[in-house]
Structures are given as structure tokens and as C-alpha cells.
């Protein structure tokens, strides 16, 4: 079903609420000078919660397109919308008591957070190359500003500069790829592109051109998901950005990047064949993507081994996790897609948790160096235990949530008979255990000579830590709803 502009508005409430939120925050920032520090976070939170409420309420029946084919509304998009809004809410709460952001005025930060969330929601359900490009640019542009938010801080500026130059080039390459695809099919609509490609049977040199299209567009998507070889910006940007922003970047735009990757490659360039998809072009794409996935996780994990700056280590670890998530995509099966969704969902809580502990420790210690984490267990047992749980979850050790994600991903890989692929993944998880354990060793076992002074944690931060711990501990017990939700969410418009 294709809806016109007016009929689509009913299904567009979450986005409209976010849009209203942006405007209200901008106005209240100017008009309510005295109250704005109280009102703005509340307004932002209200907008995000209301958008989440309406997203959960959305009952669209079968998959359809909105706004004259610009957006596709399907279960896949809804999963990502819920995911991204939850990520937005958690990051907002995590940014409230952050000393880094407290040094600058935060009015714009909240408007930008809403804008980037709006962009990501649109990314998750774009079905038209124009929408895809615009939403990706909306997210990128906002993230550049958020990374450079500490404008008197040299690192923040530098990170922002590297980010925008790298981002502009990779989206430029992606755009060139889009233009070639337009030339081959005469259409900008993803589903029309697929139909055109199927109708003309890509043969001869057109296959090579399609490869070129895939390479160029992957530059754009790889940039958003921080997959090798488009990851160079990632460690520098993650280190330089304010920690709440880093936490956000490592989860939300990455997930939106995966959503857009799946929609472009499975929705636009592949044809569904039963439970599986087949790429239109004759090249063995799964093999190529598998190599990318293996390189991404290995490079990320190996580089993380030698890092002494916690933020930088977590940056490399998030590159490695992009590799694991990609494992689910390359299988081109429903099971693989479902595993990817489950992994993303648990990754949200464990990664945000780990970054949040880093934020809390920076608040009182002003440091990201691993050495300075020595003796943290004696100073704040709660914080050390929380960090250990997040890290164990990131390793994938039962009974924590990360195990569930790894279980689904490796299960789906083994299901396809790709034992070597699963083995590489498992070896990588073992390497990752080293550096995560190293952090725990510093926090719990190593002590410095100073007498342990208790660490101050604000009540809000303590509550948020508990909020992030709960899913990490309990998801393993209550995994059936997640399983059912993910299984429902693999319906793509025009796909399976």
C-alpha cells in the first residue's frame, strides 16, 4: 500500500513530535533564560518519551510506504525506531550529570540530540535514495557539531574536524554511487531500482558497474557503521568527543547505519528467494562481506589490546562489535537478520553502560587513563561491580546479556554451515576478553598507595547505572519476548 502525503501523517507522529520538540527547545532556550536549564532537559525527555509511546502504538497492518514512496513502514523500521528512541533517552539521561558538558551551555545540545534522533528514525525507514541521502546527512551534520561541542577544547575540535572531512568525502563517494545506480535503472526509488535491475538482467559490463556502485555506496554506510576500511575516523573522534556523545555515536548512528545498509542491499540490490536473499549481481558478495566482517572485528580487537585510554579502547571495541553485527547481515537469511537485531539490542545496554561508567569516573577524576582506575573497587565497589558486569557482558560471558547476542550470532552462522566463520568470531571474542579483563584487573586487583577516598556519584547517575544494569542481568532470563520481537521485526517492505 502506498500512502499520499496527507494520509501518511497519522503514521508520522513520532517524527512530528521530535520536530516540535526541537522547535520548543530552541524557543525555550531563548525565552526562558532563568528556567531553561530545568525546562530544556524535561522538554527533550518528554518529546522522546512521547515519540517512543507513539512508535509502540503504531499499528500499520501490513508493510506500506509513506509520503509518495519516500519512506517504508515495516516491522524492521519499527524495531529500529524503538531502539533509537531508547538510545536517545538513555544518552539524554546520561548527559545530564556530566562534568564535560556542564562546562558549556547545553541549550543547543538538547535540540541537536532531538534532531539527530529524528534523522536516525528517517534513516531507518528511507525507501528512496533522496530520503536516504538527506537523512544520512542530517545525522552526520548533527553529529559533527555534537562532537565539537566543547569548542574551547582542542581535542574536541580536532575530532570534529577529522569527522566532518572524512564524512564529507565518504558521503560524496556514496552519492556518486547513487548517481551511477540512477543511470542504470532510471529510478531513485529502491523498489523500482530492484525491479529495473531484475527486468534488465544485469550482464556484461553492467555487472562491473554494479560492483562499482556497491563499493562507492559502502563507503557511505561503512562510515556510519565504522566498518573496516572506513573506520579511520573512529578512534580519534571517539576519544575527542564529549563522553556522552561518544556513547551515543558508538550505539545509535551505528545501528541506523546497519538499518540503512540492510535496507539498501537487501531491499534494493537483492531478490528474496524463500528464506534467503540472493544478490542480483553475479559476484559472490557474501564472501566479500565476510572478509570485511572478519577484518573489522580482528582489527578492532587487536588495536584495542594496546590502548591505555579507556575511551580509545572502547572505540576500538565498538569497531570490533560492528564486525560481529555484520556477521548477521552477511548470511542474507532471516535467521541472520534476527541475530543481528538481538545483538544490537543487547549491545545498546552493555556499551552505553560501559561508556556511562567512564563518564561517571571522569566526573570526579578528570581522567580516561587506565592507570588511574587502579583501586576503584575500594573507592566505589558499586561502580567497579557495575563496570565488571558491563565488560563481562561485552565479552559475552553468561549469565549476562552479551552472551545472548553472541549465542544468536554464532548460532545463525553455524546454522549456515560456516564453521570457519564462527571459529574466527570465537577467537576474536577470546582476544577481546583480554583487554576487557585488563580493565577489571586494574579496577579490582591493582591498588595504589593512596588511602581510598570514596568516589562521589550523584543519585541520578546511580539510578541510571541501575537502569542500565537491569537489562544486562535480566535479559538472559526473559529472552523470549526479545526473541519474538526480533523474529517479528525481520519483515522488510518488499522483502521476506
Amino acid at each position, binding site marked *: 500500500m502506498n500512502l499520499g502525503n496527507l494520509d501518511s501523517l497519522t503514521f508520522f507522529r513520532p517524527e512530528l513530535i521530535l520536530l516540535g520538540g526541537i522547535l520548543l527547545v530552541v524557543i525555550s532556550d531563548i525565552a526562558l533564560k532563568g528556567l531553561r536549564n530545568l525546562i530544556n532537559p524535561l522538554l527533550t525527555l518528554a518529546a522522546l518519551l512521547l515519540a517512543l509511546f507513539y512508535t509502540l502504538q503504531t499499528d500499520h497492518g501490513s508493510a506500506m510506504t509513506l509520503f509518495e514512496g519516500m519512506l517504508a513502514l515495516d516491522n524492521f523500521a519499527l524495531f529500529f525506531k524503538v531502539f533509537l528512541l531508547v538510545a536517545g533517552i538513555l544518552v539524554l539521561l546520561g548527559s545530564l550529570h556530566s562534568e564535560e558538558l556542564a562546562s558549556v551551555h547545553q541549550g543547543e545540545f538538547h535540540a541537536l540530540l532531538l534532531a539527530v534522533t529524528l534523522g536516525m528514525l528517517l534513516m531507518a525507514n528511507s525507501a528512496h*535514495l*533522496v530520503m536516504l*541521502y*538527506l537523512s544520512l*546527512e542530517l545525522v552526520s*551534520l548533527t553529529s*559533527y*557539531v555534537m562532537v*565539537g561541542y566543547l*569548542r*574551547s*577544547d*582542542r*581535542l574536541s*575540535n*580536532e*575530532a*570534529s*574536524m*577529522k569527522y*566532518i*572531512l572524512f564524512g*564529507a*568525502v565518504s558521503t*560524496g*563517494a556514496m*552519492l*556518486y554511487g*547513487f*548517481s*551511477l545506480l*540512477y*543511470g542504470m535503472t*532510471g*529510478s*531513485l526509488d529502491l523498489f523500482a531500482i530492484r525491479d529495473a535491475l531484475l527486468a534488465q538482467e544485469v550482464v556484461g559490463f553492467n555487472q562491473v558497474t554494479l560492483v562499482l556502485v556497491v563499493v562507492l555506496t559502502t563507503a557511505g554506510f561503512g562510515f556510519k557503521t565504522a566498518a573496516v576500511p572506513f573506520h579511520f575516523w573512529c*578512534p*580519534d573522534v571517539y*576519544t*575527542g568527543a564529549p563522553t556522552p556523545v561518544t556513547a551515543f555515536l558508538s550505539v545509535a548512528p551505528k545501528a541506523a547505519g546497519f538499518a540503512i545498509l540492510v535496507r539498501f542491499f537487501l531491499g534494493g540490490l537483492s531478490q528474496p528467494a524463500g528464506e534467503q536473499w540472493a544478490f542480483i549481481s553475479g559476484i559472490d558478495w557474501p564472501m566479500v562481506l565476510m572478509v570485511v566482517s572478519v577484518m573489522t572485528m580482528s582489527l578492532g580487537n587487536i588495536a584495542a589490546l594496546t590502548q591505555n*585510554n579507556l575511551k*580509545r579502547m572502547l572505540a576500538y571495541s565498538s569497531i570490533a562489535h560492528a564486525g560481529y553485527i555484520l556477521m548477521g547481515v552477511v548470511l542474507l537469511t532471516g535467521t541472520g537478520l534476527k541475530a543481528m537485531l538481538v545483538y544490537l539490542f543487547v549491545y545498546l545496554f552493555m556499551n552505553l553502560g560501559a561508556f556511562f561508567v567512564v563518564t561517571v569516573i571522569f566526573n570526579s577524576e578528570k581522567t580516561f587513563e587506565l592507570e588511574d582506575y587502579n583501586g576503584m573497587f575500594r573507592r566505589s565497589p558499586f561502580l567497579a561491580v557495575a563496570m565488571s558486569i558491563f565488560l563481562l557482558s561485552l565479552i559475552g560471558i553468561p549469565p549476562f546479556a552479551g552472551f545472548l547476542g553472541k549465542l544468536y550470532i554464532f548460532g545463525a552462522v553455524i546454522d549456515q554451515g560456516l564453521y570457519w566463520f564462527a571459529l574466527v568470531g570465537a577467537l576474536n571474542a577470546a582476544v577481546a576478553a583480554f583487554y576487557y579483563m585488563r580493565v577489571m584487573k586494574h579496577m579490582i586487583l591493582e591498588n595504589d598507595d593512596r588511602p581510598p577516598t570514596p568516589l562521589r556519584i550523584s543519585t541520578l547517575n546511580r539510578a541510571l547505572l541501575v537502569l542500565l544494569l537491569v537489562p544486562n542481568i535480566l535479559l538472559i532470563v526473559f529472552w523470549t519476548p526479545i526473541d519474538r520481537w526480533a523474529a517479528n521485526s525481520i519483515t522488510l517492505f518488499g522483502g521476506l
Partner: protein
Amino acid sequence: MIELKYFLLISACLFSLGVFGVLTRRNAVNVLMGVELILNSANLNLVAFSRYSSTGIDGQMFAVFVIVVAAAEVAVALAIVLTLYRVLNTVNLDRADVLKR
């Protein structure tokens, strides 16, 4: 009427020159100029295909949006360049490398 491939050839020239500029320049403003060349080449492709390969004006519409985004991107990029200049007194990328360790 001029054939499609000549337009594509010009755009290929612009794209690879843009890539060359991006790879070889260390001044941030210069890198931005390379990016502008890349965006222009993609736009030229879109408009050419809009004339030769489709019946509508989709390609031209896309090009309009690209121009809008390019303007916004340059504005933000220059804001970042200016802030960095204020902190560092340089816009050369190799001197902005505290982050590399």
C-alpha cells in the same frame, strides 16, 4: 545532441580530481574544495541521467537537495575550521594531531 558519455567523462574527471585533492592536500579548506568537486561531479551525473535515462525530473530534484546539503555542510565545516583555528592557530591537518598516538 551531445552524447551522454561525454558528460559522464567530464564528471569522472571532476570526481577523480576531487579524490586527488582530498588525498594530497593538508589544508582543511583545500580538502573542502576537493569535496565540492566530488559533489559537483555526482550532481552532473544526476542531471545528465535525468535528461537521458529517465522520463521524470527525479535526477534534477536530487541535485537540488545535494546543493542544499552541500551549502549546509560547508557552513558547518567552516565553523569548525574557524574554531580549530582559534584554538590552534593552524588549519593544517598534520599539525592537528594530538589525537594520534
